[in-house]
Structures are given as structure tokens and as C-alpha cells.
């Protein structure tokens, strides 16, 4: 599963590049959400153990052999909460974008130069 | 058991055939509305038969009730969503193909406009 690790890394780099080079505020937020997906992919991959099943007990995974049969549940649990937070943070960023647009009527980051040095 | 297995496999095969025909239709049809029709009618029937075949071949897992609920859900949501998409496309002013001869929605809208004015 090294491929998903590399995939997550490439997505992270594309998102970072978008955040650094794009001028449009929307594109910056999209870059942020791509970074989010990449990081989640990497964390889930680190918890994966090849040839094992999901951490849910059923007919095949009995309480006796659960430890030998399941993948790591902790990264799944962490990513679960991280995805929900990601949505809330994206919504917060977008509401800032709407608010800035109402004030200055521009989506380009170059028009906001108060803190530029 | 073997009879049920073969029956389920045949139904799944027919369902996937419908899905294949639907995707060919999406590629070959001349305009948005015809494509949408191919992508809705064929895939609704196709995915219903696919799920039904799966439920028949794995009848011992006892998930046939859930599959019936899923089939009802697909039967209900797929046409509605396709209808909303087609209506939005018509409102956005996407032209019909040159070979088509009737546009009833346009006639209806003009009639309503005439009635209200």
C-alpha cells in the first residue's frame, strides 16, 4: 500500500502549491481542502495492515481472534473527527471570503495588502 | 444452493449489461437530455438487478431485506434527481439536438407566461 502513501504526498504537494501560487481566494480554500484529503490518506495508510479486515466484529472476526485479524482502529478514529472539523473550518474560511468580498468587491488576494511588507 | 447461485449470477450479469448499455448511451447520444435519459433509465434498472442478484446469491447472510430497501430507495431517488437535472439544464438554456422535433416544457412555460400576463 505504498502507492496510497505516495498519492497522499502528491496531493499534499499539489494543495500546498495551489495555496502558495494562486491569486484567487477560492482557489486557496480549494488547495486547503486538497491538503486535507492528502493528510487523511497518509494517516489511514499508516494504520493499514496488509491482509487484515475492518475493525468490526462479525462472523469471521470473533472476540477470540480479533487482535490477529483487524487493522489499527486509532488512525480511523482520528481521521473520522478530522474530516468533520475539516468541513467546519472550510465553511469558516469561505464565510471569511464572502465577508471580504462584500467589503472590497474583489476575489484576488493581491488587493488585500494591509499586512503586506 | 447451487441453483440460487447460478440464478443470482445470471441476474447480476443482466444488470451489469444494462449498466454497460447505459454508459455506451451516455457516450453516443447527441444531446444532454438524451444522455440523461440513457444514464437514468438504464442505470436504474441495471443497479436494481445488480443488487437483487447479489442478494440472491448471498442469501445466507440475511441481507435481502436491506437490499429491498436499497432498491426502493434507488427507484425513488434516481428519477427525481434526473428530473431536477434536466429541468435545470433546460432553464440554463442548453439547446436540444438538431434532430429533435418537440419541446413540450418550452410550450408549457410560454402558455403559463401568456396566462399570467
Amino acid at each position: 500500500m505504498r502507492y496510497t502513501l505516495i498519492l497522499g504526498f502528491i496531493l499534499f504537494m499539489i494543495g500546498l502549491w495551489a495555496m502558495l501560487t494562486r491569486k484567487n481566494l477560492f482557489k486557496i480554500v480549494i488547495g486547503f481542502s486538497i491538503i486535507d484529503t492528502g493528510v487523511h490518506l497518509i494517516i489511514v495508510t499508516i494504520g493499514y495492515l496488509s491482509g487484515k479486515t475492518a475493525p468490526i466484529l462479525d462472523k469471521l472476526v470473533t472476540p477470540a481472534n480479533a487482535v490477529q485479524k483487524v487493522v489499527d482502529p486509532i488512525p480511523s478514529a482520528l481521521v473520522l473527527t478530522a474530516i468533520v472539523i475539516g468541513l467546519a473550518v472550510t465553511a469558516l474560511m469561505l464565510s471569511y471570503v464572502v465577508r471580504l468580498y462584500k467589503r472590497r468587491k474583489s476575489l484576488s488576494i493581491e488587493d488585500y495588502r494591509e499586512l503586506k511588507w | 444452493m447451487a441453483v440460487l447461485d447460478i440464478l443470482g449470477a445470471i441476474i447480476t450479469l443482466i444488470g451489469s449489461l444494462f449498466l454497460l448499455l447505459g454508459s455506451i448511451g451516455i457516450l453516443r447520444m447527441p444531446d444532454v437530455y438524451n444522455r440523461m435519459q440513457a444514464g437514468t433509465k438504464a442505470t436504474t434498472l441495471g443497479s436494481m438487478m445488480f443488487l437483487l442478484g447479489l442478494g440472491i446469491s448471498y442469501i445466507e447472510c440475511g441481507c435481502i431485506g436491506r437490499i429491498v430497501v436499497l432498491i426502493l430507495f434507488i427507484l425513488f431517488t434516481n428519477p427525481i434527481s434526473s428530473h431536477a437535472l434536466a429541468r435545470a439544464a433546460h432553464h440554463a438554456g442548453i439547446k436540444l439536438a438538431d434532430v429533435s422535433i418537440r419541446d413540450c416544457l418550452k410550450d408549457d412555460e410560454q402558455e403559463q407566461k401568456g396566462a399570467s400576463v
Partner: protein
Amino acid sequence: MIKRLLIIVVIILLIVIFLPFMKNVILKDSLNELSSGYVEKSVSDLKTANIVTAVVVTFRGLDTLGEVTVLFIATAGVGLLLKRKKGEKSKKSDKRPASEILQTGASFLFPLTILFGVYIFLHGHLTPGGGFQGGVIIASAFLLLLLSNINFQFNHTVLHWVESLSGAFYVLLGLLGLILLGSFLNPKFLPLGTLGTLFSAGAVPLIYSFIGLKVGSELSNILDSMRGAEE
């Protein structure tokens, strides 16, 4: 020009730093001590069939509490930023109403979707799913109403009460564990039952239901604020 060069240098530097890490990361083939401890404990002590639920609700319960707090703060921020001022009335929207088929279908699907969300978070300790997924499904049910009916208004009083009460009950259940058993968010004060039935795993389904209600109402709130009130 200098800025562009700087960006390229930063990206290349990051790739140079992280690529060896990506190459040398050791993908393990057995659980480490902490994870196997969690798996054993959740099967023997808590009787939850879904181990991820046990980790989210109990073993990492404080993380979840913090996460719900972050969600609440973000929702409050969105509502505050997009608040419409008193005098500022929006014009009558010129959107045309949705068609008859869509409205009827949406009003028929809405209760079914809510039911599905409740099913997901009540069965969070047995099957994949839980409070977060169920809450998202409830929010998408409200989204269906928002999209199909342009004049739809949320009843904000009910929404705020559901949100605050579910958050308060979540903390109260945690405190109950602290008082009765001596540790915060300990769900074992209810009978554990047998593995694999609906009434099992102590208070885990109850806690997850409150998380689900809170997440659902908060996400619906975010959607409503992002849409903007049509007066």
C-alpha cells in the same frame, strides 16, 4: 520574480525533506501494544462490536469532546460572520420554485432520510457508522428541504435547543461516569449486555446519539448560514 523563486525553493525543499521519510516508512504487519490493548479492552470490557466507536467514544472520549467544541466554535464563527444586519433587507429572490415532482419527492424523502440518520447513529456500536456519519446524514436531509423549497425557513429556536441540550447531555453523561465510576466518560454505569445486540455496550449508544444530534444540528446551522436568509 523573487517570490516565485522562493515558492519553488520551498516546495523542492519540502519534497527533499519528506521523500526519504516516505521511502523509509515501515508499514507494520501487526498491531502495536496500544492498539491491541484497545481492541482487547473494547471486546472484553465494553462489548462494542465496532472498535472504532469504542475508541472515539470512550478511550479517546476527551478528544471527541474537544472536537465537538471546535465544531461549535466554527459554527458560531460562520453565523457571526454571515449575519445579516437589521436594516439590510435582501431583495425578493427571482429564483423560480422547484417543480411539483421535486417538492413532493423531497417531502416524502425527508422523514426517510432522518430515519436513516437515526438508524446509523443508534447502530454505531454494531455496524460501521456512528454519531458523526448519522449527524451528516441528518444535515443532508435538511439540505434536501433547503434546496427543494426556496421559501423554507429553519425554526431556529428548536435548532438551538436541540444543539444546546444534546451538548449538555453529552457532558452530563460524562460527569455521571465520573461520579459513579470515577473516570470521565466511562460508559459502564449502564448494564453491558451481550455483544452484538442493540442494547449493549453500556452508555455508548446513548453518548453517540447525543453526539449525532449535536453534529447534525450544527451542520444544518452552517448550511443555513451559508445559504443566507431570504426574507
